[in-house]
């Protein structure tokens, strides 16, 4: 590495991280965090597309009662495979590595004024772990898994499909996630630029820090749980299998001990992204910075003690259900604080509606829906009705798609000029946003109503009275899918053929990442910046 540093010395204005070395191998073996961001982004997009196709196939099948497309979904088993595929791909291969491993990789060193992450080679290694995990998962799909992404025992310990291989893939992916998180924690602790104290960190860094902690300490738990499923299948360890005196509910506990916090792995960075976008386009400091930071950390911490709210009707004791219901409401408070602070940031601002701002505002709405419907599911008596119905499906998608995926799209549009050095067409991207925003709501609002009418999830077929809502939902899903395609093709096209060069700081932001060239040079900064002021230092000081 050191040997190449001289070749990228200042003076060659044209050289940046994209072109300072060329050839496919220079990308695949690069330890540059910005190039690893590209590797991750291209890989997760493959699984976004595959998972999206699985979703559209499911939605098409569900468009009418009874078999709709028997040539593709030939029976209920095929359908079950598709929803498992959708879940596994979207969760383990797309959303979990989604914002942290892509946007986080790109932005964390840039935002804290570092040349790279603390362990660049480990960073590349965790990318290849991801690839290996993805390949194993692909092989497992040859004898497709039909357990759903939750792998509940004893179904997962008794079905004849390739569960062992699939959960091993998830285990490997888990280690990829752990190493990424570990790397980010160390990076944020050790590599901040001079003057960049903790209370001067951008909220995205805070959110990434909270995320990284969850990634590092929660993921091993699910990893081991999945290994125990393999042990159960391989030699009957007698831990989860009730015929051997094991306890399937214990498996659910251990699974959700990770899989509840994982929701915050997905959505906390999106909070960070929104917290970055709103001040820039409102030309105002982030309202209540300290509270936003505290609430991020609080969400991460509280996230660890609420897991059993996924299990209110799983046969846990009434005491346990009551306990976990009460603590679950603790999550609502920091989340509400965040929303209030975001909206207040716009107060007396000078607001411009660039595409990232639209995504951020759309996010606030979608997340309000996600958060308030979350309250229904935290309420014991109401959750008994809603558990495992389409209401949960809709709530979950508002959180994860409306939260994490919209956050990712917002981030991609926000930092696209920095990533590619080009400006995309605003009209096209705004149209795409409108399509996917309307499509998304059209897909999932009917699903809330379906849930109210008692429609259970993971159903291949359903009584005819649910058909109209299902059909609407399917139409929405296609609109949503077209919206994403449109938006992503726009970005891809611009990156490849775009003519408009991006300036260093197109949005006139105060963030450190905008102080370097677009796209940045190989080691990010010509000289390491020195930070002297608080973040989001916009607006007119009273005493000035």
């Amino acid at each position: 590495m050191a040997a190449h540093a001289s070749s990228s010395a200042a003076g060659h204005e044209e050289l940046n991280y994209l072109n300072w070395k060329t050839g496919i191998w220079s990308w695949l073996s690069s330890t540059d965090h910005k190039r690893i961001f590209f590797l991750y982004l291209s890989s997760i997009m493959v699984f976004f597309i595959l998972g999206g196709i699985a979703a559209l196939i499911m939605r098409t099948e569900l468009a009418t009662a009874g078999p709709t497309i028997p040539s593709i979904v030939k029976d209920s088993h095929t359908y079950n495979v598709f929803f498992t595929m959708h879940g596994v791909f979207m969760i383990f291969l797309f959303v979990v590595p989604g914002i942290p491993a892509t946007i986080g990789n790109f932005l964390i060193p840039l935002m804290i004024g570092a040349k790279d992450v603390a362990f660049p080679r480990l960073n590349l290694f965790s990318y290849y772990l991801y690839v290996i995990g993805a390949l194993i998962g692909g092989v497992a799909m040859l004898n497709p898994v039909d357990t759903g992404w939750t792998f509940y025992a004893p179904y997962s310990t008794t079905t004849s499909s390739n569960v062992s291989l699939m959960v091993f893939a998830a285990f490997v992916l888990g280690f990829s996630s752990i190493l990424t998180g570990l790397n980010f924690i160390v990076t944020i602790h050790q590599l901040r630029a001079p003057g960049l104290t903790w209370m001067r960190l951008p909220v995205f860094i805070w959110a990434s820090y909270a995320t990284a902690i969850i990634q590092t300490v929660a993921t091993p738990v699910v990893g081991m749980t999945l290994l125990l499923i393999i042990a159960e299948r391989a030699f009957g360890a007698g831990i989860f299998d009730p015929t051997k005196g094991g306890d399937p509910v214990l498996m659910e506990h251990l699974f959700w001990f990770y899989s509840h916090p994982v929701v915050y792995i997905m959505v906390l960075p999106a909070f960070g992204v929104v917290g970055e976008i709103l001040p820039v386009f409102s030309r105002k400091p982030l309202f209540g910075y300290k509270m936003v930071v505290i609430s991020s950390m609080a969400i991460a911490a509280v996230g660890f003690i609420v897991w059993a709210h996924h299990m209110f009707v799983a046969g846990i004791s009434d005491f346990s259900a009551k306990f976990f219901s009460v603590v679950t409401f603790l999550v609502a408070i920091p989340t509400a604080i965040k929303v209030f602070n975001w909206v207040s940031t716009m107060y007396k601002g000078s607001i411009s509606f660039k595409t990232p701002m639209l995504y951020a505002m759309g996010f606030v709405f979608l997340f309000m829906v996600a958060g308030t419907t979350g309250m229904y599911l935290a309420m014991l008596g109401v959750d008994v009705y809603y558990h495992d119905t389409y209401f949960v499906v809709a709530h979950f998608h508002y959180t994860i798609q409306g939260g994490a995926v919209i956050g990712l799209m917002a981030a991609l549009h926000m930092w696209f000029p920095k990533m590619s050095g080009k400006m995309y067409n605003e009209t096209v991207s705004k149209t795409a946003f409108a399509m996917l925003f309307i499509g998304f709501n059209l897909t999932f609002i009917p699903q809330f109503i379906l849930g109210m009418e008692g429609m259970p999830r993971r159903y291949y077929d359903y009584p005819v009275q649910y058909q109209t809502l299902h059909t609407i939902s399917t139409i929405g899903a296609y609109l949503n899918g077209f919206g994403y395609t449109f938006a992503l093709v726009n970005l891809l096209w611009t990156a490849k053929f775009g003519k408009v060069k991006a300036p260093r700081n197109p949005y006139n932001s105060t963030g450190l990442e905008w102080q370097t060239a677009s796209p940045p040079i190989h080691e990010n900064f010509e000289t390491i910046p020195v930070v002297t002021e608080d973040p989001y230092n916009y607006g007119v000081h009273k005493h000035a």
Partner: protein
Amino acid sequence: MAHSNHHSHDEIGHVVPESLFFKVLLTLLFLTAVTILAAQVDLGKWNIVGALVIASVKASLVIYFFMHGKYENRIIWTYILIPFILLAIMIGGVFTDDPFRSKPVPLQVTQQP
């Protein structure tokens, strides 16, 4: 760069004398003997409490001296403690459930030949 917690002189980290390690080793062996002996006496449920307390003392000695925990900063101590706190939360959380419901009894499934 910011926040290096060590002096950038020639020596980094703290040199621990080997004699201290040897004393710790003797203590650990002694505690092992105590655990084994204590287990021979039937104290009911206090057996496991005692065994875990001694094990925790041993673990603390290993972390504190062998692993140089004594000389580490607050950040590292945070991350030393987090997994143990989470383990406590995990076991505590699961135990809000299990003791309050019936225990699983293997089904008399018709054995398939």
